[in-house]
């Protein structure tokens, strides 16, 4: 029987390999756990810095729904039922006054009926790296009086089930996809050609891995006012002065079936302009390719200065684990109130301050080559009244944060502690 041959063949493989794979000691367990935690930290940092923010939820949880705040089951308070997005912003312009922000009403669980049975055929979802251990973003700032999160999704918009994907090839940040120099160079050539810029004078940015080996991080070229950078994670970053970016960025991206969604989050860049003033950035548009929630591009502009287009020219190799039951917004809110969420490094400053300060609720598939599982999340945008922007050298700003609560029923997670950082 060839299985016997296979057993024998495996038996004869190199001694070094066998010894290397020997059932581990306690030390090995600890070292692996530590290594993974380190990877998650690095990955989450990278996620915060440069990689991926979000994709609007599947099944069309897009702008149209966000704009429909105020239905029967809306989480927007009844007195805001007729509110349109612009009016929401107007309502909160007087920041600092009591009840400035839309109030999340108490929500009866009876309004959403759920099947309490567990589908045993579904694979349990493992560690949701790296949206743990303090990952999920940083304290962000919006121009004073503006609304960082626009609109509330409605419970009726939440599908009963949503897909969960397992991502193969999970890798560390800095080398998230691990393209070699030739592949990065080819991508650079492709996008330079689409932009009509020269590839003369390419600069190479490198980093050192744990073994001290120098590895390629990115290739960058600048032609006139246009800067093109491609990193080893297949991230394509194109910056050009305001007004220069083509209205139809798909002429650069060449997505087969672009679906454009306006984005609404303001966030503060860490940069200051020539006058030392804080320069805010704002996501302008969010582009997905067809109905694939795992393929997207983001375009954001600095409110003063250049416009940058970020795109990851890769497709995550994923396998759909199945369609998982999704909890209701009310249940997600309860988890948030219980502290069962992923957010920036937890400290008293970023503790959830209360539902009355929620300014937005949406659903996303946070994406990154560093994530092992692609799971839908509820994202609560919440003002942080106790954070002093001045402490961060930011003037005339309000602080906010985004809290990520897994949208999949917790019974399908292998470990609560892997999901919820207390």
């Amino acid at each position: 029987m060839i299985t016997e041959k296979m057993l024998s063949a495996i038996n004869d493989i190199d001694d070094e390999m066998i010894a290397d794979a020997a059932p581990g000691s306690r030390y090995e367990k600890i070292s692996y756990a530590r290594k993974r935690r380190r990877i998650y930290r690095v990955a989450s940092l990278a996620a915060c810095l440069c990689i991926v923010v979000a994709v609007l939820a599947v099944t069309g949880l897009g702008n149209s729904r966000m704009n429909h705040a105020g239905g029967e089951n809306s989480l927007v308070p009844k007195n805001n039922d007729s509110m349109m997005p612009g009016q929401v912003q107007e309502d909160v312009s007087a920041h600092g006054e009591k009840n400035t922000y839309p109030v999340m009403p108490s929500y009866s669980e009876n309004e959403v009926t759920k099947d309490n049975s567990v589908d045993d055929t579904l694979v349990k979802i493992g560690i949701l790296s790296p949206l743990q251990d303090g990952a999920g973003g940083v304290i962000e700032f919006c121009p004073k009086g503006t609304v960082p999160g626009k609109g509330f999704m409605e419970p009726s918009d939440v599908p009963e089930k949503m897909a969960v994907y397992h991502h193969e090839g999970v890798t560390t940040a800095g080398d998230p996809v691990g393209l070699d120099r030739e592949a990065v160079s080819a991508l650079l050539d492709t996008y330079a050609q689409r932009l009509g810029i020269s590839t003369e004078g390419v600069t190479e940015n490198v980093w050192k891995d744990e073994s001290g080996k120098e590895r390629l991080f990115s290739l960058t070229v600048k032609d006139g006012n246009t800067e093109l950078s491609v990193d080893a994670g297949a991230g394509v970053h194109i910056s050009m002065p305001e007004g220069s970016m083509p209205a139809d960025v798909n002429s650069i991206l060449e997505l087969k079936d672009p679906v454009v969604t306006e984005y609404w989050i303001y966030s503060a860049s860490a940069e200051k302009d020539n006058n030392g003033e804080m320069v805010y950035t704002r996501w302008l548009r969010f582009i997905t390719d067809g109905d694939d929630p795992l393929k997207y591009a983001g375009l954001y502009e600095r409110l003063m200065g250049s416009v940058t287009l970020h795109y990851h020219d890769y497709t995550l190799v994923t396998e759909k684990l199945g369609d998982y039951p999704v909890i209701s917004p009310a249940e997600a809110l309860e988890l948030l109130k219980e502290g069962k969420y992923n957010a920036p490094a937890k400290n008293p400053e970023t503790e959830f301050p209360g539902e009355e300060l929620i300014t937005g609720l949406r659903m996303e598939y946070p994406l990154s080559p560093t994530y092992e599982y692609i799971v839908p999340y509820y994202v609560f945008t919440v003002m942080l009244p106790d954070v002093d922007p001045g402490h961060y050298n930011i003037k005339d700003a309000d602080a906010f944060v985004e809290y990520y609560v897994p949208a999949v029923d917790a019974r399908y997670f292998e470990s609560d502690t892997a999901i919820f950082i207390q």
Partner: protein
Amino acid sequence: MEDERIVELYWERSESAISETETKYGRYLKTVAVNILSNEEDSLECVNDTYLNAWNAIPPARPKVLQAFLGKITRNLALDRYRAENAQKRGGGEIALALDELLDVSSRESVEDSVADRTALTDALRRFLSGLSTEDRRIFLKRYWYFMPVKEISEEMALSQSSVKMRLLRMREKLREKLITEGFEI
């Protein structure tokens, strides 16, 4: 004690070679046997037989990697015992599961047609394993060399069980494709 010194003790025909081997690798060898036999008593017998076999094999052998050398002896002894005990019944336990998984790679039905000889298959496997990441290779060997339960692998590697299963599935598929590409009839 360093492996080289233990091997020297065997060459010197010093009986302390056995006790030093037991001290350093006794627990490891027992794990190898238990994963296959799921039986404490039988496993201990296998481990003791391993010491005897090692005593008889060294010299003339001078193993470079003593751990693997001993592990192979234990594994073969345990597999022989497993086969003998399961000749008339379908075996249970971890090894049965692992063997079933390996059938994904090498189907029973094609046995008669297979012309792959053991050396060629070993070489192909070696190339396949060399092409894997260190982590994947460890997972593969923990499962199919050491017959470790998925749960234990996941705990050791700090991975979820589903992730380990998924990786094993991918590796089996990849191995199967590789063997077909290289002309093995499976």
